[in-house]
């Protein structure tokens, strides 16, 4: 009975989403206050029913309701309760419900925190979110219903893919979706602005905190995913340029461009058309990401079962959303958006160049990701694009971005002066060269490591110099407003990230070895001694657990326990052991016994020494913190903004 209530709740949510998507937009168009007032209650109603459906699905998992096909397919009696919650979004149907669930979190939040905005504008924004909700709710109800019954009810269920049975998986998808779906808010703001006309750029100020928060969540989601892949997939890699990773990375890149472009438009009134276009792209790429993951058109570690009906539906939805929004853009943008001019040497130009680099990077990733589809369509054969394509082009595009980054804060709006830039460049440049020389002594000819240190110090020193400058020149209390602090923290994150990537990529030692018990192998100054394997057991798996003692100069540093797990349904899964440190990770994964009948004999082992690998994720966390911090800017919360006004450009740089 209860699962049917879940389905019923979804159907009601669909009806309310239709109401939310149609009536308020009509009301805003006709100037009908009664219809406009429908927006908030409809959003709240849709939210309540979607939250109910989600709660019912979680309830079904917690109570082993195997009469529900989705529950039976993805959980079993031996699965611990926390992984049964993870299993809710462990496969297709549930993850679509999660998508809609998070869309509703955003809609309800927007309905609650938009009292200071003009009602007609909010009605349009909520209307657009309602229409997106219609698309996804219909998709769930007609092609991917998680509440379908399976009768007769099986005694026990299947299993959650063991790769997903990891704490990282519990929170990676929801956080990632918070980011993905969060771009729908920026999208809705843009569409509302295009529909409304006349708003000029006031809407950008309202959209900024939402976009920053969405981007920060996306950053956290990608960092969590990268860390999870590193810890769980047993290869010790942190990024694979896998189609699904790319699917989350493209909106992130466009998101970087978007949050910077929004700042320009909000403060200076320049580039409004570009900002609108970027927010359309960011959300379109989020949808495309959903399409790539859900349709199974590309081979990927993430791809779920392919069902052509689902793929077609999402493809159709994608065409309607992208085509419709671009059409609206083409019709309305020339009227809505009139940009203000700026000098060639100005912060506007700096942001524009950075924007071009990031959107080109996104286009490059898009081309590489879709190329197998293009090749297939043109009958060129079965093609895949190797990771070096992405790595090479990404470095080519990001090197200028890193080079230009420290100049950003020093550039004045409108027209900048060269003198301050040269002063900064001298300081940061000298610091970078000194550190690179020091690094060269340690890195012994690893050019990438030296370049990484130089690049990171260049960015870090440039950012630090600006922090000092603000401290000296501004009165207490006005030195670092939240927006500025967020920018500085995020840029520091870039420096940390660059160090992490370049040092870990060039200095890591990775070795696959064959070791008999008692034998040892020396890597990166550490001795790895293999002391054999023992049997061990968990709630729904048993494992061979290796014992590897790490020694440095004869003294024991630690003991590591990599596992080779066999789950109750027979799937095999490697659990690597990681000794984490700020300056180096030691990573041990168990391969296979050299003789399958002699588990106590020699094993294949994967031994890694990875300097500075944590800095990759640390840098990402700094960027995330920057995004959240900037969203706290007090200016964004200003109670009353005259709806008709075009914001006056400020004379002072900020």
């Amino acid at each position: 009975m209860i699962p049917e209530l879940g389905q019923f709740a979804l159907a009601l949510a669909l009806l309310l989403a239709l109401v939310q998507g149609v009536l308020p937009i009509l009301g805003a168009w006709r100037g009908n206050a009664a219809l406009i007032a429908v927006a908030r209650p409809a959003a709240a109603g849709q939210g309540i029913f979607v939250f109910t459906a989600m709660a019912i699905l979680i309830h079904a998992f917690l109570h082993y309701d195997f009469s529900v096909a989705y529950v039976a397919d993805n959980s079993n009696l031996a699965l611990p309760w926390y992984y049964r919650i993870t299993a809710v979004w462990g496969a297709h149907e549930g993850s679509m419900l999660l998508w809609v669930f998070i869309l509703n979190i955003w809609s309800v939040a927007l309905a609650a925190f938009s009292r200071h905005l003009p009602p007609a504008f909010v009605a349009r924004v909520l209307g657009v979110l309602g229409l997106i909700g219609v698309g996804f709710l219909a998709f769930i109800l007609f092609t991917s219903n998680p509440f379908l019954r399976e009768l007769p009810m099986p005694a026990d269920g299947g299993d959650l893919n063991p790769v997903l049975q990891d704490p990282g998986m519990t929170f990676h998808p929801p956080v990632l979706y918070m980011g993905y779906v969060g771009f729908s808010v920026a999208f809705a703001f843009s569409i509302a602005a295009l529909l409304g006309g006349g708003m000029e750029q006031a809407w950008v100020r309202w959209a900024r905190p939402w976009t920053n928060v969405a981007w920060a969540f996306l950053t956290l989601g990608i960092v969590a995913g990268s860390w999870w892949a590193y810890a769980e997939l047993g290869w010790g890699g942190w990024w694979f340029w896998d189609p699904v990773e790319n699917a989350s990375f493209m909106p992130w890149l466009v998101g970087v461009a978007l949050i910077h472009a929004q700042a320009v438009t909000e403060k200076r009134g320049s580039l409004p058309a570009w900002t609108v276009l970027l927010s359309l792209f960011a959300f379109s790429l989020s949808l495309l990401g959903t399409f790539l993951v859900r349709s199974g058109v590309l081979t990927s570690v993430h791809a779920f079962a392919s069902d052509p009906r689902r793929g077609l539906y999402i493809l159709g939805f994608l065409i309607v959303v992208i085509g419709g929004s671009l059409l609206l853009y083409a019709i309305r943008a020339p009227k809505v958006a009139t940009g203000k001019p700026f000098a060639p040497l100005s912060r506007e130009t700096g942001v524009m160049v950075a924007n071009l680099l990031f959107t080109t990077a996104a286009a490059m990733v898009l081309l590489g990701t879709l190329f197998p589809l293009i090749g297939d369509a043109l009958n060129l054969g079965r093609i895949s694009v190797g990771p070096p394509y992405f790595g090479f082009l990404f470095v080519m595009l990001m090197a200028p971005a890193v080079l230009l980054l420290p100049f950003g804060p020093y550039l004045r709006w409108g027209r900048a002066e060269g003198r301050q830039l040269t002063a900064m460049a001298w300081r940061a440049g000298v610091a970078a060269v000194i550190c690179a020389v020091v690094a060269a002594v340690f890195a012994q000819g690893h050019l990438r490591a030296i370049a990484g240190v130089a690049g990171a110090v260049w960015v870090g020193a440039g950012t630090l110099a600006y922090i000092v400058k603000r401290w000296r020149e501004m009165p207490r209390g006005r030195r670092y407003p939240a927006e500025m602090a967020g920018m500085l923290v995020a840029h520091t994150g870039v420096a940390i990230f660059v160090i992490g990537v370049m040092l870990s990529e060039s200095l890591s030692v990775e070795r696959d070895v064959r070791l008999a018990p008692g034998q040892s192998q020396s890597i990166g100054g550490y001795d790895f001694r293999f002391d054999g394997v023992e049997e061990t057991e968990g709630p729904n798996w048993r494992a061979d657990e290796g014992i590897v003692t790490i020694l440095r100069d004869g003294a024991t540093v630690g003991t590591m326990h990599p596992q080779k797990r066999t789950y109750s349904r027979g799937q095999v899964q490697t659990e690597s052991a990681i000794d984490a440190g700020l300056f180096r990770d030691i990573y041990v994964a168990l391969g296979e016994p050299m003789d399958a009948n002699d588990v106590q004999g020699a094993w294949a082992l994967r031994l890694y020494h990875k300097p500075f690998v944590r800095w990759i994720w640390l840098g990402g966390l700094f960027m995330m913190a920057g995004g959240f911090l900037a969203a706290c800017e007090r200016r964004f919360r200003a109670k009353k903004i005259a709806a008709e006004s075009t914001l006056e450009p400020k004379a002072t740089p900020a």
Partner: protein
Amino acid sequence: MNPTRKRRLAIVISVIAAAAVAVGLTVFALQRNMNYLFTPSQVQEGQAAQYATFRLGGMVKSGSIQRAGDTLKVSFIVVDDGGAMPVEYTGILPDLFRDNQSVIATGRMDSGRFIASEVLAKHDENYMPKELKDAMAKAHENRKIDDKKDMPR
């Protein structure tokens, strides 16, 4: 030319130059990193001869996995309906690698054997990667592959 026009011209020229560099680099990188997928029978027909590195897809022949006595070197045979190809690999095989498992190996040919630098067997035992299924279906038009096998349980 007045200053405004001069500036616009400079902007246009630099944008075109940047675009040209970007397109050039992209084409270069794509050409270097495009990998084609072939099945053993297609390789034996000589279809892969023009490619230095390519991907080989098929099933691991039952009982063909052999390990060297003292190193991590392993050899096995990848088969499809009409062909078989001996593969050599040094390193740790993926968790799901076993007899009759569908695998995709990246590497090059060396005197009749395929020297793999990477072996993937990402999916569970009932699942065959779509592109591999298509390639095998294409190699053997007469063979029917049961579509239900594509669904992970």
